[in-house]
């Protein structure tokens, strides 16, 4: 766990979103943890992948060098700055190692054309924000959802934060790939009321191809979660031509029925949406699904509903999308 100079543990957080209504019951505040061991090709939050602060750039927000130049002027590397410009505008910024200890340009940029992904936040700082919407949780059975990135990568900090929530009687939910040592998971579960996880593919080779890792550890942890009787919601991010074959869906259904004993509150089939383009660009990263053209919405919806029906054959409480009540 990382600790500040004053000995305060902190987490690296990409974003806090209030009034989240699809990741757990009721109205929730969702905390996005930074850093993830997987590299799913369909990931639409690439800013959550690296477990380090990073520079993100939005050249279209730059107000023009002739009017501003605060970034370049603040860069300690002078003419050797990694900030590249073109036509009076910010063009790109390929981070160099020195950037990590500097980020001065991002601090100076008035328009947030250069910004930092990832904020160091302590438990009390996060709790302050979380508690602001307490009445909303109480009214709706909502609470806090930790998500990412991968929560388990910062498992010690996550456990602290969850404990603080529980002490404040706030419902807690963890959304995780469960690709982590089982002991970490169990530690995090101590103050977790609900778990949301994915089954991305039942074939470990394909899983590896799409996410960078095999599925054995994940399936083992899901099984363990069921054994621990942790309330569990499973999602399948349904990506056309990748994991939407009937075979894979049936294999998933069998796993949930036979191995988990249908210990699942809800199984959600979530349609893939191509929304990552801009964010990958801000990080100077290629978008793996950039060339993918999703099928027509109507075709696609039908397909999703058909897969949902198949799941129901296994007596699994399956739904399409995430907007039906969990509990």
């Amino acid at each position: 766990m990382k600790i500040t100079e004053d000995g305060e543990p902190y987490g690296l957080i990409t974003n806090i979103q209030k009034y989240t209504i699809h990741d757990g019951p009721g109205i929730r505040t969702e905390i996005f943890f930074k850093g993830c061991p997987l590299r799913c090709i369909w990931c639409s939050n690439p800013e959550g992948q690296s477990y380090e602060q990073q520079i993100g750039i939005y050249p279209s927000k730059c107000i023009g060098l002739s009017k501003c130049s605060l970034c370049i002027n603040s860069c300690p590397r002078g003419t050797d700055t990694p900030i590249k410009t073109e036509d009076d505008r910010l063009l790109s910024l390929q981070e160099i190692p020195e950037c990590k200890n500097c980020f001065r340009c991002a601090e100076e940029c008035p328009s947030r054309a250069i910004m930092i992904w990832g904020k160091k936040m302590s438990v009390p700082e996060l709790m302050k924000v979380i508690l602001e919407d307490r009445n909303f949780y109480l009214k709706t059975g909502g609470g806090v959802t930790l998500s990412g990135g991968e929560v388990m990568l910062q498992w010690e900090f996550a456990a602290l934060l969850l404990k603080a929530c529980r002490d404040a009687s706030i419902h807690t939910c963890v959304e995780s790939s469960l690709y982590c040592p089982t002991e970490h998971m169990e530690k995090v579960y101590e103050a977790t009321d609900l778990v949301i996880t994915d089954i991305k593919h039942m074939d470990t080779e394909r899983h590896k191809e799409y996410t960078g890792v095999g599925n054995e550890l994940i399936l083992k942890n899901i099984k363990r979660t069921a054994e621990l009787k942790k309330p569990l919601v499973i999602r399948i991010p349904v990506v056309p031509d990748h994991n939407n074959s009937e075979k894979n869906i049936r294999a998933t259904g069998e796993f949930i029925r036979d191995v988990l004993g249908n210990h699942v509150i809800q199984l959600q089939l979530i349609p893939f949406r191509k929304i990552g383009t801009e964010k990958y660009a801000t990080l100077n990263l290629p978008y793996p699904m950039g060339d993918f053209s999703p099928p027509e919405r109507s075709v696609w919806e039908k397909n999703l509903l058909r897969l949902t029906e198949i799941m129901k054959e296994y007596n699994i409480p399956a739904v399409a999308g995430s907007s039906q009540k969990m509990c």
Partner: protein
Amino acid sequence: MMESAIKREVKSTEPMAIEPFDKEWGVGVSGLTENTSPFPRINKILKWLKERDHTADHERAVIYTDGYFKKYTPYPQILKCALTLRDVLQNVSINIWPDELIVGEIAAPAKSAPVYPEFSIDWLCDEMVNAPLDQRRNDRYVISEETKKALFEIKDYWKGHTLEEHILSTLTEEELKGSHLEKGVNFFDLYVSAGAGHVCADYDKLLSIGFGGIRKQVEDQIHKVNTSDPDHLTKKEFYDAELIILDGVTSYISRYGHLAADMAEKETNPERKAELLRISSNCLQVAEGPARDFWEAIQLWHIATNMIIIETNGHSVTYGRFDQIFYPYYRRDIEKGTFNREFIQELIEMSFLKIHELCKIRNKTAIVFSSGTFMGGTALDVGGVDKDGNDATNDLSYMVLDAHAHTRIPNPWMGVRLHENSPWEFKVKTFNVIRIGTGEPKIFNDAAMIKALQNYDKPIEDARNYVGIGCVEPCVPGKTYGWHDSSSFNIAKVMQLAINGGRCIGCGSHCPRYSKCAGIGGRLGIDTGNLESFESFDQVMDSFDKQMEYWCNLMISQINKVDLAHQRLKPLPYLSLLIEDCIGKGKDVSAGGALYNHSGPQGVGIGTVADSLAAIKQLVFDEKKVDGKTLLNAIRANWQGHEPLYALVNSDRMHCYGNDDDYADDLARFVTATYCKHVEHRPTPHGGEYMPGVFSVSQNVMAGFYVAATPDGRKAGEPLSDCIGPVHTQMGSHDRNGPTAVAKSVAKLDHSRIGNGLILNWKFSPGAVSGETGRDSLISLMDIYFENNGMQSQFNIVGKEVLTDAQKNPDQYKDLLVRVAGYSAYFIELSEELQSDLIGRTELSFD
């Protein structure tokens, strides 16, 4: 969660409407469906109405001019007005349109606007020549040659006699300098060229005793007047006027009865024949007598309201608490089997169409900022508590909501009253209708509305019976003459004067006032200090307070003159029949006959001013990032040459109102409280007290035209923040923490002082409110907002892409209905300025 699960059970097995309470009509599908009503008649008339052009009609104007200048010249003003109006009612042409079940017009055919020369006529004649109304981009009116000719003929009679000319002649140079005609601090033009409207008649009394019963009330009073009473003559003239009007009323309604009978005789279709006969007997009954069943009641309610419009030339003539007014009739008819629920549903939808056909011509400036409004302010409420505080929701509350889902037209302007014991089913239906995305209905919090009225000394029983006039203005129906909306006050302009020594930002010789103002060392306002020299933020607040006091005083003196002019020139003898206690007092409603009297000017730009003050506090005094002089120069230069500062004030580094951040929210409280302080409880000429409101409708766009750049990152001419909402500028929205933060920030303002009401506009993407999860979260969000004393909310649920596309391809979005401010309107009927303002509002989306 247990608790909410219990709440979700359907408590009642009684029929609540013809549609199930949880019927969904889709999310964000405004304008995307046809034939939405289960009644073919309704769909048919709707289509007919949509195809008809808006027109103008001269008959009222001609008859009125004739009476006013030829027949009744020697009479005292109130009798002159009564006699001319009686002539209108007795002589104007009337029509019964195909398939109608409820009849009545506003002295002009369906979708045609009468003309009211007694207020002002020059502008209309001028536009007919120089800015033809049929060539307008929005709010088009086709005017026939015959009408044009007739209007030109009467025009000269009115020279020097209109209300408008009278008012302008009474205003001093000091009062004019900040008006809409000059520097735009205060827009009080609404009642200069039109009537005050904004009133809700005593429908309970009317339906139960009829006009005959009212006549008897008048006659009883006449005998009580003591001839040695100093008011004797005034009272006598008033009562005479009431009796004259009642003659007009009875003959007007009877004329429809006779027309229906004549048409029945010629009708060959037996079904229609029977309908016409029933229409005829309805009219003949309610011409004098009380309503005996639902059909007669809704007929009387409709035609009586039309006559208010014919007389007053006011908008926001409100239809009251529909479910409370009509429930006794509904219940009796269902119990006795007179009508079934389906037929009553059809009558309700029919009445909506009749309200939708009403219209009012506005001048070319007004329609830029207040476009697509048809008549405007045709408000009608359902739900809420009864006079004892118990839930009063009934079957009709549900049926009215279905009626909107079935008609999907912007009229009437619907309000749903909610309170802590509102049935869950009723909330579900309300939000399912809201999710269609037409912008209807708005929702009110009973607790906050009632508290605001109590703060203005209304007894609890009356406060509980409130209705939202027009947009939202809290009002005790049948007892109040509220002058709601008597002015729009540009708080942002005042803030600018407060930081610039009383001069406008950008003051210079290009200003038409220069030679009598700054050019000779003067200033528009008073010198309360300058941002270059303030030493502390307290001095800024103090300067703002003093500048506000100066301008609020001026506003009140302007409104008072307008008020007095209405009393002198335009007494309202017909309306006086329907507002308690005019008959008892023997006094016209315009002169203070009502039990409760008010004047409610609106403050505009709370968010803009709060964020501007927050920026000054943060950058100049707390962080000392820039000095006052630099910031002042930046806004003087409209941010040119100060781009980094412009980007900064629009960035998330700033404290902004709407983020549940006390730093800025406290300033929004301060701004609101300052406005209220200088306005509330001051006396009005018609015998009541001032009651401030905080909403702009769409005046924020208009007021913004008059305001140079502001420190919150707004450029010159951009709209001010709308109503009570957070700021959004060209650079983006200043509320960044989602809907819970907005709800909490807004609830921090002291709503109980805002007696004339406020509006909070929400914009959600369809994805954010779809599904059961989306619906229930939205309901809970509003529950909590209301528990924290929020007063009102209204919603747009249309994707930004849809709006942007509709702006480009209007032909494909003819029926797209959206919420503007106090009202919903067809998007393509809005001016470009308003369309862009709508697109710019923060869209809350989280999927």
